[in-house]
């Protein structure tokens, strides 16, 4: 955190000054470790085993917060008899279709009930829809068929066992599932000595409970794995057992890679989502708004109002054209035909299906996994638009990229037309950042952008304007195909020399308005009849009263400790989500020290320091009748109001494609076999689609050839640079602080492989060979894993061939093998070899990789197994 979020780390330092203990778990000793009370190095790619070990400790030592767990989680819920655990099936769950590599989640249901997830994979149940072609969805998109489908949750109430002793209740299933995640196992898998692990368990559990809370903080070191979502799930289980969710000082904090990554999922740049986590509709035949809403809504909780959110979004986009008669232009929305993630787009480029590409502030030639594939795919495009501050590698690969040097590509043969559009920096435009706390903070233009540089808003608006002008003229103008674009409300006011659109007008549209054009103040005002428009339902209220709430900057010392008047947090300016959980079932704070909101019997309403995240007048004693639906079905002790059953899910009966519980699997490329199960890797990881000569995978564990790549490596960032370098390697003041690409190795590995401090090393995977200067440092420590010494190699991934400081790209080494839930690449743990000296030049570089592939016996089948 100190490395990549130094500004945010000030709060950790403040907490430390007030007595907080900081534990840092990371393969490397970083700037964060330097300030932590305890640094725990572990093998990259083993965090589920580590966290699962803590879950085991909490359950076996009875350290969980029983009252919280019993009332606010699904611990007592009884599962269907069909459920079978990884403990029973040697590493896979019930419902695995080994042919198609997907799970049928129906084997994970609550007894007598079927539940859809609040967000994520809500149309997993599409197959259940009678008389529809659900199977094709599954084949097209496999485990991640998005957008629609799914029976509504059945009526009735799930069976519960309040004693938590029923063998099929979630609590007992959880105990069984993690029973073998002992300190001894953690030591064997993660390389963390049992006594050190025990200290972590004690620190965390001692600081959790009625009076105290602990927070977990993570970044892409948890997410960029073939089991990335399950890493975070393990943390969720742990924090839920400890009662650290919905309470001040608790939570799981995702540190984002950029200033507004949270914003880019809320109002998404993702292919499978619409604003506010409404799924993108799938290309199911004859689907209309009503069937989409029916399939996506859940019976109880606030997702039951899905229609209001969707119709209001359609009204915001298509305004006058969106009427009940036109089904609110639902047919104008694009449809998914499968997974269209970044990496499938690369395949489509290689196949010649994707012919044009916009890169807005993104440098895939350096920043995306398997950089070679990224560049070779771009070389197959008709046109490419790059908007960035400088001529990044993704704009110049055709002239001076590594494949030009190796002779694989020749500039004169490349037909891709590349357009470079200079971009304005955040100081040169107005807009909002949404941080990890879901808080919008507005920034104002400080200086006008220089030269031809323009904001993204300018680019998108004027591009749309010109396209609409062209479509609206000429012979094809009446074509119905053009209506979705021509009917858009594309009417933002512009001003100044550059005709910059008014970003506050966009914010006002996101916030929404009623039939009279009056700004809305809360998403509960949204209606499904077309009388309200709202660009993103969770952001409704950010422009309440026509005031830019995100621009508020009242200093913390002039307001309460919750600081509600600094910026604006969705939803409804709540600072802690699900904060009903900060009070006990009777509505009283768990302790004075940790009071956040509480039930006021006199006024019959919830009140407190934060804005209650609950039905304002719902008494703790309220229990819904059996036939209640929607918000009415939330009981007085259901803090997790976006969940169909109002409970935190220790066990996820739906919503995940790769299992209801997290399980330790080895990374795609790993020198170790899975000690826990016969199943080596996540069986439903997204990998076979990436079978490609540029994406060869490595043997793992006991497989022959695995020893050719004996070391574990991980990629990361340095404070001095930013992601793929577009914002830092072109600046002298930052480049001089970290002027060359380097690898970090321990003195022991340096001795083993003859690496010299400040000398050169060549690092090789089945994909590529790169070179780096060597930093020999005690900050990287050898670990003892499965009885042998493991060395890890650290690789910052900022470098490429352009800028003030240049070097090979670490991401050229990485492979395409993705998490099946969110299609993220596994670049935080893989295996490599390292050798002294510089890499070969020209075609000899590829030859070296081929030699390694031959030595390891790598074929197109390697690593592709279930």
């Amino acid at each position, binding site marked *: 955190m*100190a490395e990549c979020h*130094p*500004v945010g*780390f*000030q709060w950790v*330092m403040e907490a430390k*000054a007030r007595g907080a203990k900081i534990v840092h778990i990371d393969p490397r*000793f970083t*700037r*964060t*470790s*330097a*300030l*932590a*009370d*305890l*640094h*725990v*190095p572990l093998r990259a790619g083993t965090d589920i085993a580590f966290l699962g070990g803590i879950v085991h400790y909490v359950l076996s030592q009875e350290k969980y917060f029983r009252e919280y767990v019993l009332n606010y989680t699904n611990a007592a819920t009884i599962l269907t008899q069909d459920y079978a655990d990884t403990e029973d099936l040697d590493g896979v769950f019930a419902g695995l279709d080994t042919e198609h590599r997907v799970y049928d989640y129906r084997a994970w249901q609550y007894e007598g009930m079927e539940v859809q997830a609040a967000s994520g994979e809500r149309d997993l149940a599409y197959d259940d829809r009678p008389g529809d072609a659900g199977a094709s969805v599954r084949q097209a998109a496999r485990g991640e068929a998005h957008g629609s489908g799914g029976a509504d949750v059945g009526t009735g109430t799930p069976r519960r066992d309040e004693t938590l002793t029923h063998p099929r209740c979630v609590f007992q299933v959880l105990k069984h599932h993690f029973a073998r995640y002992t300190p001894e196992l953690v030591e064997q898998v993660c390389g*963390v*000595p049992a006594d*050190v692990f025990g*200290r972590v368990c004690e620190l965390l559990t001692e600081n959790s409970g009625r009076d105290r809370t602990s927070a977990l903080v993570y970044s892409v070191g948890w997410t960029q794995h073939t089991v990335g979502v399950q890493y975070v799930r393990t943390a969720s289980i742990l924090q839920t057992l400890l009662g650290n969710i919905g309470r001040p000082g608790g939570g799981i904090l995702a540190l984002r890679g950029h200033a507004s990554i949270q914003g880019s999922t809320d109002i998404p740049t993702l292919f499978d989502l619409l604003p506010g986590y409404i799924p993108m509709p799938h290309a199911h035949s004859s689907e209309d708004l009503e069937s989409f809403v029916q399939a996506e809504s859940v019976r109880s909780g606030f997702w039951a109002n899905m229609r209001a959110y969707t119709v209001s979004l359609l009204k915001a986009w298509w305004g006058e054209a969106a009427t009940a008669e036109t089904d609110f232009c639902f047919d104008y929305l694009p449809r998914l035909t499968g997974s269209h993630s970044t990496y499938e787009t690369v395949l489509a480029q290689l196949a010649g299906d994707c012919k044009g590409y916009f890169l807005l502030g993104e440098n895939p030639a350096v920043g995306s996994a398997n950089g070679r594939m990224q560049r070779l795919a771009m070389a197959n495009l008709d046109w490419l638009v790059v908007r960035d501050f400088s001529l990044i590698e993704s704009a110049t690969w055709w002239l001076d990229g590594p494949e030009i040097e190796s002779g694989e590509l020749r500039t004169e043969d490349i037909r891709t037309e590349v357009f470079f559009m200079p971009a304005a920096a955040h100081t040169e435009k107005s807009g909002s950042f949404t941080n990890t706390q879901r808080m919008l903070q507005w920034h104002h233009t400080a200086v006008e952008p220089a030269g031809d540089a323009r904001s993204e808003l300018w680019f998108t608006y004027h591009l749309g304007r010109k396209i609409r002008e062209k479509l609206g003229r000429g012979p094809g103008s009446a074509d119905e195909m053009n209506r979705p674009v021509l009917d858009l409300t594309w009417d933002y006011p512009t001003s100044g020399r550059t005709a910059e659109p008014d970003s506050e007008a966009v914010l006002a549209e996101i916030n929404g308005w009623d039939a009279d054009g009056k700004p809305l103040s809360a998403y509960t005002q949204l209606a499904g009849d077309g009388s309200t428009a709202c660009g993103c339902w969770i952001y409704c209220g950010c422009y309440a009263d026509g005031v830019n709430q995100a621009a508020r900057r009242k200093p913390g010392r002039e307001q309460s400790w919750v600081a509600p008047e600094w910026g604006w947090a969705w939803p409804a300016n709540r600072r802690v989500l699900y904060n009903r959980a900060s009070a006990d079932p009777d509505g009283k704070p768990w302790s004075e020290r940790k009071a956040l909101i509480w039930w006021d019997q006199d006024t019959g309403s919830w009140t407190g320091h934060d804005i209650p995240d609950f039905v304002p007048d719902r008494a703790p004693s309220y229990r819904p009748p059996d036939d209640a639906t929607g918000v009415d079905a939330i009981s007085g002790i259901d803090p997790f109001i976006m969940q169909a059953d109002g409970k935190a899910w220790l066990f996820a009966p739906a919503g995940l494609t790769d299992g209801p519980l997290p399980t330790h699997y080895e990374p795609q490329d790993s020198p170790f076999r899975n000690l826990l199960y016969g199943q080596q890797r996540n069986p439903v990881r997204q990998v076979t689609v990436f079978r490609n000569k540029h994406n060869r995978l490595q043997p793992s564990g006991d497989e022959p050839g695995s020893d050719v790549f004996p070391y574990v490596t991980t990629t990361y960032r*340095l*404070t*001095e640079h930013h992601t793929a370098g577009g914002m830092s390697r072109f600046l*002298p*003041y*930052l*480049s*001089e*602080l*970290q*002027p*060359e690409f*380097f690898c970090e190795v321990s003195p022991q590995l340096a001795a083993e492989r003859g690496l010299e*401090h*400040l000398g050169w090393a060549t690092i090789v995977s089945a994909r590529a060979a790169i070179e780096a*200067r060597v*930093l020999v*440092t*005690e*900050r990287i*420590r050898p670990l003892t894993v499965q009885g042998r010494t493991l060395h890890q190699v650290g690789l910052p991934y900022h470098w490429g061939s352009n800028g*003030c*400081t240049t070097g090979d790209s670490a991401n050229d080494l990485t492979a395409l093998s993705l998490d099946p839930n969110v299609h993220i690449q596994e670049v935080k743990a893989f295996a490599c070899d390292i050798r002294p000296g510089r890499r070969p030049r020209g075609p000899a570089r590829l030859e070296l990789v081929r030699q390694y592939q031959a030595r390891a016996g790598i074929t197109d089948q390697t690593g592709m197994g279930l």
Partner: protein
Amino acid sequence: MSDPEATASSGQAEQQPRLGFFTDTSVCIGCKACEVACKEWNHVPEDGLLLTGMSYDNSVGLGADTWRHVAFIEQRRPARTVLAENGPAGTGDGGEFRWLMSSDVCKHCTHAACLDVCPTGALFRTEFGTVVVQEDVCNGCGYCIPACPYGVIDQRKDDGRAWKCTMCYDRLGAGLEPACAKACPTESIQFGPLDELRERAAGRLADLHEAGVSDARLYGADPGDGVGGDGAFFLLLDEPEVYGLPPDPVVTTRDLPSIWRHAAAAAAMLAAGAAAAFAASGRRR
């Protein structure tokens, strides 16, 4: 007013308290924001893209083109000095491993030798008690450079003039804090009236000692030291030498008065001797 001598020459000692830096290295996270903010504000040029291999320190030290410098020290020491409970890194292989970080800067000495030796008056003491080079007055004679007991002030190769931290003199005049202190995310660099900073530093030191960090110490906070105390002082977690700081700096012009006295005495002796010689020779005649 704790340092009348440092501000006396400005003639505004009555109105303006002496301002300074307290750099608490125990909370430095090595982000180098101070280095970058300093360069941005003061237009200090980039000075070389050299990978040094000195941990994450690639700017090496203070110089004409580096006015804030963050040192990184990877250190293994006997286990007795374990800071809190620094984990397996701390318990293995013969002692505690730690990574010290410290942002160094011009000390703005109470007795500033650079200022003493400057023949043009380019170096002067400001109304804030800081020591600043006037770039339009400096003639590049370089006398100040060997005079600095810390090796801070330095000649810029391509223009010959002497450069160093001004404590953002232009910002102070506008009521702003220096760029480095403004950019520091963890309040490792604190700026303010020197006597307040000294008080705060004493409190922080006591807290650390109480927490068992027995090696914590202040550096440059003592008005009785060889430079009369620094306008920019530090809290360190080890000996000054570990950070590349002189353990006992002395203002190089400290002995000038006595040198001059000795010189005068010697001259007088010489004159007396000469006179005596003449007198004697006169008598012989």
